[in-house]
Each structure stands twice: as structure tokens, then as C-alpha cells.
């Protein structure tokens, strides 16, 4: 008798912490919206015609609104259960709009857009064919077909190639990305910023850390308070500013008719640039505090002439040199308080 009574209770007790399932039909190009109170969201994109959700703890109350084009999932859960795992399976073409108040987000390759937000936890994604928005601590993705926007709460951000524009805003942590086909805008509280290439313009500011790229075809506007700036090839105008650090870049424009002005400023650091021999340029290079006993620290393949009125008479005064190349034109303003300036010509 006792056994008969206690068996259902025992079964219920055993089932309670086990998984919870939900299922909704969805069109292949539909949209999944998940608003999880807390949960590690793992998305598998091998589904065919439905959204399948499995939550690792039955104390989570899931509410689903199933429509043909959109499936909305929201949930409530007692805080005491910690962070349950959510396993979600969707067709590959479904747009993913996922938010969790706490937890990691992990998605496989998708052919659609992905909007992934967590207030704490890593975000990992495969290749995303559409646009992407990610908010998280550490972020790692494959290639992005569309635009990419990342808001980092603190932690490393690593992205593959990006088919559209890229925008980054982070409190701290390094950012690396592959080839960006559009424009790039990045604002880092601190950390290094490294992109392999950009076809568009690049604007980067960081309070501390290096800024590096192999090739920026558009304009470059970069500022770091403490770090080096190194652009192997720059296709358009350049503005590079650092307080403490070196600046290096090679101007490599596709045509010489566009705006190719240069502003390079370092408070404490060396500046090295390569300028095409055929480019029209008006060079103005200044070392504000050259070595007291040394020779000029401005080196150039172009025939620079001292332009400072007092150079040579008062040791330690500014060392200023300039040149007009090919009749002059694009202003090349290079300034360091203390360091070396190298302006070399490129064939």
C-alpha cells in the first residue's frame, strides 16, 4: 500500500529536475526569438521545419508563441536553479534573436541573421551568412556575411572575415578580425585592435593597445593613447595618433588623384612612413625635442630642408624639416615630441 502511494511521488520527484521540451513548427526562413532569464543557449542548425527546445531543468517555465513565421520563447525560473542549459534546434535559414540574462551562447553555422545577447558569458558562433549583432563578454565567431556589430563587456573578441561593415564597442580586451569588406568603426576602452584587411574606411580609438592591419584600402583614422600603430599598406588618407608608441605605415594608393593627406603624431615614439615616389606631397616633419647633442633624427629619401628658424643655433630646439614633392599637394604632417621620423619613398 505504502509502495503504491509513494511510487508516483518518487517518479514525479525524479522527473522534476529532468529536461523540459517544447516544439513549434517554423518556416525555413522564419525567426526565432528567445528571451531566457538565465541559460546557456546552444543552437544546433540541423533542424528542418520546427524549433525544438530542451531545457535542462524542469523548474524553468517556458512560454512559447508559435506562429508560422516567428516563434517567440520566453521563460521564467527561480534564481536558485543556477544557469540551466538550453538546447535549441532550428532550420539553418531561421533568423536567431537570442537573449539571456546570464549564460553563454553557442550557435552553429547559420544562413540567416543572428542577434545574440548575454549580460554575462561567452558567445561563440560559427559562420553567419547574414548580419550579426553580439553582446557578450568573450566573443568568437567564424565568417560573417553581412554587417557585424559587437558590444563587448570585457574580454577578447575574435571574428573571421566580415562581408559588410563592422562596428565594435568594448570596455576592454583585444579585438581581431579578418578581411572586412565594408567600413570599420571601433571604440575600445582598452585593448589592441588588429584587422587583417579592410576594403573601406577604418576609424579606431583605444585608450591603450596597438592598432594593426595588413591593408586598409580606404582611409584610416586611428588613435591610441598608449600603443603602436602599424598599417602595412594604406590606400587612402591616414591619420595616426599615439601618445606613447611607434607609428608605421606605407601609403599604397590605387590612384593618386584622391585625398592622400597624412597626419601622424606621436608624443613619445618613432614615426616611419613610406610615400610613393610619384605622389604629390608637401611634407612637414617636426621633432619637438630632438636629442641635445645629436644630429637630426629626421631621415628621408626625399630632399628635406630645415624650415625651423632657430634650428642649429639652439641645441634641443625643435627640428623641423619639409619638402615639396612633385610640385606639392597632399599635406604630410608628421610630428613627434621625442623620437625619430623616417619618410621613405616607394617606387
Amino acid at each position, binding site marked *: 500500500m505504502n509502495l503504491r502511494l509513494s511510487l508516483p511521488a518518487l517518479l514525479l520527484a525524479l522527473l522534476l529536475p529532468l529536461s523540459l521540451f517544447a516544439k513549434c513548427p517554423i518556416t525555413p526562413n522564419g525567426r526565432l526569438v528567445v528571451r531566457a532569464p538565465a541559460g546557456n543557449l546552444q543552437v544546433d542548425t540541423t533542424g528542418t521545419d520546427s524549433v525544438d527546445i530542451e531545457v535542462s531543468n524542469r523548474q524553468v517555465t517556458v512560454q512559447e508563441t508559435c506562429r508560422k513565421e516567428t516563434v517567440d520563447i520566453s521563460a521564467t525560473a527561480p534564481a536558485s536553479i543556477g544557469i540551466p542549459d538550453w538546447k535549441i534546434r532550428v532550420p539553418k535559414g531561421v533568423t536567431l534573436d537570442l537573449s539571456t540574462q546570464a549564460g553563454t551562447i553557442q550557435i552553429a553555422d547559420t544562413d540567416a541573421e543572428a542577434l545574440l545577447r548575454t549580460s554575462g558569458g561567452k558567445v561563440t558562433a560559427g559562420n553567419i551568412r547574414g548580419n550579426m549583432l553580439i553582446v557578450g563578454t568573450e566573443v568568437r565567431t567564424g565568417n560573417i556575411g553581412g554587417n557585424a556589430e559587437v558590444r563587448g*563587456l570585457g*574580454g577578447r573578441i575574435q571574428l573571421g572575415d566580415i562581408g559588410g561593415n563592422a562596428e565594435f564597442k568594448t570596455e*576592454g580586451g583585444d579585438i581581431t578580425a579578418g578581411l572586412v569588406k565594408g567600413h570599420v568603426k571601433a571604440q575600445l576602452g582598452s*585593448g589592441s585592435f588588429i584587422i587583417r584587411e579592410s576594403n573601406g574606411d577604418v576609424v579606431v580609438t583605444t585608450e591603450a593597445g596597438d592598432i594593426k592591419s595588413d591593408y586598409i584600402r580606404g582611409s584610416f583614422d586611428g588613435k591610441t593613447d598608449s600603443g603602436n600603430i602599424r598599417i602595412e599598406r594604406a590606400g587612402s588618407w591616414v591619420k595616426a595618433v599615439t601618445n606613447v608608441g611607434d607609428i608605421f605605415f606605407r601609403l599604397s594608393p590605387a590612384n593618386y588623384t584622391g585625398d592622400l593627406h597624412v597626419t601622424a603624431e606621436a608624443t613619445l615614439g618613432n614615426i616611419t612612413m613610406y610615400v610613393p615616389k610619384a605622389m604629390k606631397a608637401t611634407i612637414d616633419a617636426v621633432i619637438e625635442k630632438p*636629442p641635445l*647633442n645629436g644630429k637630426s633624427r629626421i631621415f628621408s629619401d626625399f630632399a628635406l630642408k630645415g624650415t625651423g628658424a632657430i634650428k642649429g643655433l639652439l641645441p634641443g630646439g625643435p627640428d623641423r624639416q619639409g619638402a615639396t614633392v612633385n610640385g606639392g599637394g597632399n599635406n604630410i604632417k608628421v610630428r613627434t615630441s621625442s623620437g625619430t621620423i*623616417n619618410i621613405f619613398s616607394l617606387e
Partner: protein
Amino acid sequence: MSCQEYQRQIVLSLYEELNDVERAGLETHLTECTGCRQAFEEHQVFSSALADDKAAWELPSDLLVESRRALADQLDRIETKRSWWRMPAFSVVFTPMRMLESATLIALGLAFGVYISNHQLSPQRPAGDALATATLTAVPQNSLVSNVRIVNTDSNTATVEFTGDVVQPLRFTGRLEDDTTRQLLFSALQDSMNPGSRMQAVEVLARKSSEPSVKEVLIHALLNDENLSVRLKAFEGLKPFAGDDDVRAAFMEALMKDKNDGVRVLVVDALAPFTKSEAMANSIEAVTRNDDNTYVRLKGQGLVHSVGAQR
């Protein structure tokens, strides 16, 4: 000319650095001297091997810059050594160096005048020669002088006392195991004005984070550096040792006091695999109980549950 001199010319000839007369002289000598001809052929083979191989080389892009800088430094040194005794040559070209020389001569003349005049007025003047030497040697070659202040002047002796800072460029390459390298890295970590340098120092030191002194430095950076990226890099270096008592204690402190959500999230994640005992889980839960970040808070609670469930 001796064979030794001809052989020196061989190298120059391969780089087309000889004038016509020298080249003709060398060619004549090569037809007559077997030893030099052999040396020429060897150089030629070496030179063409270098040329063939050139495409495969990846020269550092800074090589030219560095070479020029080193050359300039050497020239400066030579210039300084020479300028002590060399009289300036008469020339109609007024280069900056010549103008500097002229200015120096004028200044020396004035100084000499002052010296003579003081010497005549006051036979017991202080050691002016020693002072002059001290002044000249006080500013090393290529150094920067900043914050120059005159702290004392004495009109009787015509002396001026300066204070200031002299900064000299430093370029040093060393292995991470070397004391000097390590001391320089530690020093870079103390540079409060240069967080970029601190980040790089931490990143490099993190490769040796198993060593106690390095670990200690990284812990200090994690807990005290005001720059978030420096703390994140210090964390990355320490993460593999999250099971060690000292690192765990540091992580607990970071969990308690770091203002950045990202750091606390990473730290609580790093502590999780090493939280085996109930006491440890409880202490993490206590630290994270009132955390603003939901993930950190729930993760702390979750650890208590998971340790309890394992029992």
C-alpha cells in the same frame, strides 16, 4: 697595391662601388694574380647565390630604419669624438653642423672670456675646468634633457647649478629567462603612464607564468592594474593555474573587487572546475551573492548546487 687591398676592392666591385680607374686596375691585377682571381670567383658565386635566393627572404620591414638609425648613432659618436680636437674647415656651405660648430666656438670664446675675467678678479675661484668637464659629460650622446631648472646661481663664481632629467634611448634584445630582460619587463609593468607597455609586458610574462616570481607579478597586475586589458591579460596568464592556492586566492579577490563584469565572469568560470569542496563553493557563493552581474551571481549559486549534487 697589395693583394689584400685588391681583395678588399673585389667586394666593392661586385656592388659597383669602384670608380673606372680602380676597376681597370683591379681587372688588370686579376688577370695576373691567380689567388685574387680565385677570391674574386668565390665572391662572385656567393653574391649570385644571394641574388638568386633574395626572393625567398623575408626581411623585416624595419631593417632599413634600424640600419639608418644605427648608422646615425655611429656617425654621431664619431662626430663627437672628432669635434673635441677638430678645427672646423673653412667652407662657404653653412650646414646645420657647421652653424652648430660656429655657435659652439662663439660660446667657448665667451666662456673663455668670462673665465679670464673671473680669474683676474678672483684668484681663488673654484675649479672651473672640472665644472666645464662635468657639464659636458652630464649630457650623454643622443639623450633628451627635460625639466631643466636652475636651482642656484653664484655671481661671484659665475656658476649655475641645474637640475633636470636626462633620458637616453634604450634598445635591448634578450631572452625571457635572462635577468635583465625580466627586470625590464617588470619595470615596464610599473610604468603607470604607459598601459600599452604594461599590456605587452604582461602578455610576454604570461608565457612564463608557472614561475613563482612571474606569477606573483601577474597576480599583482590582476588585482591592482587600473587598465582593464592589462588585468584581462594577467588573468589569461594565470588561468591555467587556477587550482593553485595563491592564484585561487587572487581570483577570489578579483571576484570580490574587480569592477568589470567581464573579468568577474571569466574569473568565476575559471574557478568552477577547481571547486571541489563545499567550503570552497560556499566561499565563492558568499563573494558573488550580491554581485550586480546575474551570470556571476547564478554561477556562484550553481557551484554550491553542483558540489552538493556530487555528494
